């Protein structure tokens, strides 16, 4: 890219009709986060106490584990998109930016999978002994 005429460069870099995908997913995950984090807040607030037994029983329920897993996906997806934009804006050095974006992807995927596995394991097999 970049060796040909201007029109050639434009053709090579032009619309693939998915330019708004990132932007739209940022908004959709924002709506997901809005609903799911408020659910988490009130779901925790109405608990009678915060002893381990209560929390483990609460988190093991289908009606808590499932929204929690969906929230983790929505949150970490939103984090990946949001921090990507931030890094693209503030890390001008290309090599550094690619490294930072790679680490961000590892963090987002790793964090989500860690959380999902933790919740699923508790729900399926109970508290680890």
């Amino acid at each position, binding site marked *: 890219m970049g*060796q040909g005429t201007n029109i050639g460069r434009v053709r090579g870099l032009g619309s693939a009709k998915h330019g708004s995908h990132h932007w739209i997913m940022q908004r959709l995950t*924002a709506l997901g986060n809005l609903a799911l984090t408020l659910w988490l807040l009130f779901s925790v607030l109405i608990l009678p106490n915060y002893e*381990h037994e209560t929390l483990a029983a609460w988190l093991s329920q289908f009606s808590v584990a499932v929204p929690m897993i969906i929230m983790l996906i929505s949150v970490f997806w939103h984090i990946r998109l949001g921090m990507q934009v931030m890094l693209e804006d503030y890390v001008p050095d290309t090599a550094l930016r690619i490294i930072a974006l790679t680490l961000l992807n590892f963090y987002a995927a790793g964090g989500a999978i860690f*959380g999902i596995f*933790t919740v699923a394991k508790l729900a399926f097999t109970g508290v680890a002994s």
Partner: protein
Amino acid sequence: MSNKKQRPLSPHLSIYRWGPAMLVSIINRIVGNALATVGTLLLLWWLYAIANGPEQLDYLKSWLDFYYIGYIVLIGLTWSFFQHLFGGIRHLVMDVGAGFELKSNNFWSLMTFVAAFTCTALLWFYIFTNMLEA
């Protein structure tokens, strides 16, 4: 890019006069990143502790009382959460094309701060009064 000649740069933060819209936008990024790093790591730690027994949860809780650092972090994260929430709602409203007039834009920008501080104060007032009763 083959065009190596000096291109004009767009003016950056330092050149603008500060206003509510600029402040709320920048704060939204800062608190978003705080939530994305400290907030999610704490959430994952909390989930891990619940799944791995009372000792793990006690260990997590022990950090709350470590010179009140836990409370300072949690209150900071609560404010970050509400600020990002209301700042985010503001962006969603502006995404549909509303609220760009100067007066209403400034007003709702300031309102995100009022709402975030109010919600943070109410939530922690609720938490602390419950802790005193217990």
